[in-house]
């Protein structure tokens, strides 16, 4: 069933009684060409592009909870392509291009809003670093601008420009950056994949990965065994646990990242604002709430909740750069478990086991990557060749001494 403005109008007049479920609830079949473990954004996008772009339709997405229960429904919804390194930036620019056409492509309103992103600058060296980044962004075809304090004053008069420790001297702006309604991304991809014949199997946890003589033959699940020619791990924060089922250890630690939202306010923020120096970033949702966050708690955890010191730290960052936030009441806070890789960059790769593939290590930046991650993973699964913008997301890059240390951050960064 296609969605359109006319349908919304007609359903409104007829009591909204004609809407159908957006996807089927099939029982698992005994065998598929490809099984994707994890029905988060990346797993669903992978299934969608496999079926739509690469003609592989005999696919199942196996999800232990419900769609949207993982990080796809917990993130702060920021999209951008303002990376530096050649291994990263073209990938994120592809992602941004896919976002720009996503709603038309999967016929679902994901509320993609290119309301711009500002990264604040507080010192001369930081300006130099951002100028370099802005140039690197342009090399991949992305847009970037350096703004001075007067331009930012006009856009965001509420910031603390004369902050004694971090005076605002400028910003890197990407106008095409912005926010997207995160659960709608999961739902849109799920519906699109389902319409192309993909089985989405919820409440079905993978409890084993079957490997015979170095070849992956399927998975064990809480709803019985399922055979497959290829098995694609895509479990984000649970990547380490899923890989352990195949006796693999990953260069990943699971950490919690918290996020917060205030009561709804009138429109005040022009776009996304990041205060990297103070570990704080903020945007305003379409409902009006200020959505903000900061750093990870810092120690291994699988609990989807964080501790109070980080709440205080993030709020201090907010008060420092945007004092007016102190007048808003905090409504909610939550946490999501993330797959922190050792260099802060992801993996989309084959493994040492034939027929077993890995997509992991997204840290706190995997939401913006959802379309490109799905597209490139689908490319790898269908053709056994990496997509040209994802050639460096290799599992063996640490052994080769070729980490992609974008900012030199990771779980416990081994900064060599």
């Amino acid at each position, binding site marked *: 069933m296609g969605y359109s403005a006319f349908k919304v109008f007609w359903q409104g007049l007829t009591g909204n009684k004609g809407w159908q479920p957006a996807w089927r609830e099939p029982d698992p079949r005994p065998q598929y060409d490809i099984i994707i473990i994890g029905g988060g954004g990346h797993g669903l996008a992978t299934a969608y592009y496999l079926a739509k772009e690469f003609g592989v339709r005999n696919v199942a997405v196996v999800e232990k909870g419900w769609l949207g229960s993982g990080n796809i429904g917990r993130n702060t919804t920021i999209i951008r392509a303002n990376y530096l390194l050649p291994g990263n930036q073209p990938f994120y620019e592809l992602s941004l291009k896919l976002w720009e056409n996503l709603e038309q492509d999967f016929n679902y309103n994901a509320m993609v809003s290119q309301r711009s992103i500002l990264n604040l600058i507080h010192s001369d060296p930081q300006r130099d670093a951002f100028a370099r980044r802005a140039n690197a962004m342009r090399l991949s075809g992305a847009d970037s601008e350096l703004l001075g304090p007067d331009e930012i004053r006009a856009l965001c008069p509420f910031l603390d420009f004369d902050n004694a420790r971090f005076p605002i001297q400028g910003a890197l702006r990407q106008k095409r950056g912005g926010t997207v309604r995160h659960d709608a991304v999961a739902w849109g991809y799920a519906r699109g994949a389902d319409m192309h014949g993909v089985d989405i199997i919820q409440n079905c946890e993978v409890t084993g990965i079957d490997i015979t003589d170095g070849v992956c033959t399927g998975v064990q699940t809480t709803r019985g065994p399922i055979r497959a020619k290829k098995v694609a791990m895509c479990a984000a924060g649970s990547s380490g646990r899923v890989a352990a089922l195949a006796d693999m250890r990953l260069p990943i630690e*699971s950490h919690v990242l918290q996020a917060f939202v205030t009561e709804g306010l009138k429109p005040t923020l022009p776009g996304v604002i990041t205060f990297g120096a103070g570990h704080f970033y903020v945007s305003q949702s379409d409902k009006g709430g200020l959505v903000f966050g900061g750093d990870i708690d810092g120690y291994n955890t699988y609990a989807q909740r964080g*501790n109070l010191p980080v709440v205080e730290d993030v709020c201090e960052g907010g008060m420092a750069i945007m004092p007016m936030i102190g007048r808003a009441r905090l409504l909610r806070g939550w946490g999501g478990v993330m797959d922190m890789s050792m260099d802060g960059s992801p993996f989309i790769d084959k493994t040492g086991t034939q027929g077993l593939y890995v997509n992991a290590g997204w840290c706190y930046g995997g939401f913006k990557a959802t379309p490109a991650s799905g597209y490139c993973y689908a490319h790898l699964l269908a053709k056994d060749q990496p997509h040209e913008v994802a050639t460096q997301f290799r599992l063996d890059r640490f052994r080769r001494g070729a980490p992609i240390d974008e900012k030199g951050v990771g779980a416990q960064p081994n900064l060599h």
Partner: protein
Amino acid sequence: MLILHCPYCGTDADETELAPGGEAHLKRFGPGSQDADFEAYLFARENPMGVHFERWRHANGCGKWFHAARCTTTLEVFGTYSAQTLDPPQEIRDAITAKRPGWRWRDFA
């Protein structure tokens, strides 16, 4: 708030006094070792759901490094112990066994 007992100065330290240092009891593979071992020593981690042995520094206190045994799902602390050891001491293992019978971690169970 996570509170860990510092085995050196005896303080029950709040999380704000402590700096996390990642997985403990890593076996060092240095010059002359296999590439795969060296890589695993530097980068691969157990990342368990459950019992985890880890390093902490009493950074805003006595400044010493120590070890903790903690559960990564419930955040429960089983105990802390000196950094001057290659393996978790028996009383820590017993404390874990009392609460998590059948626990396993690398080759020490």
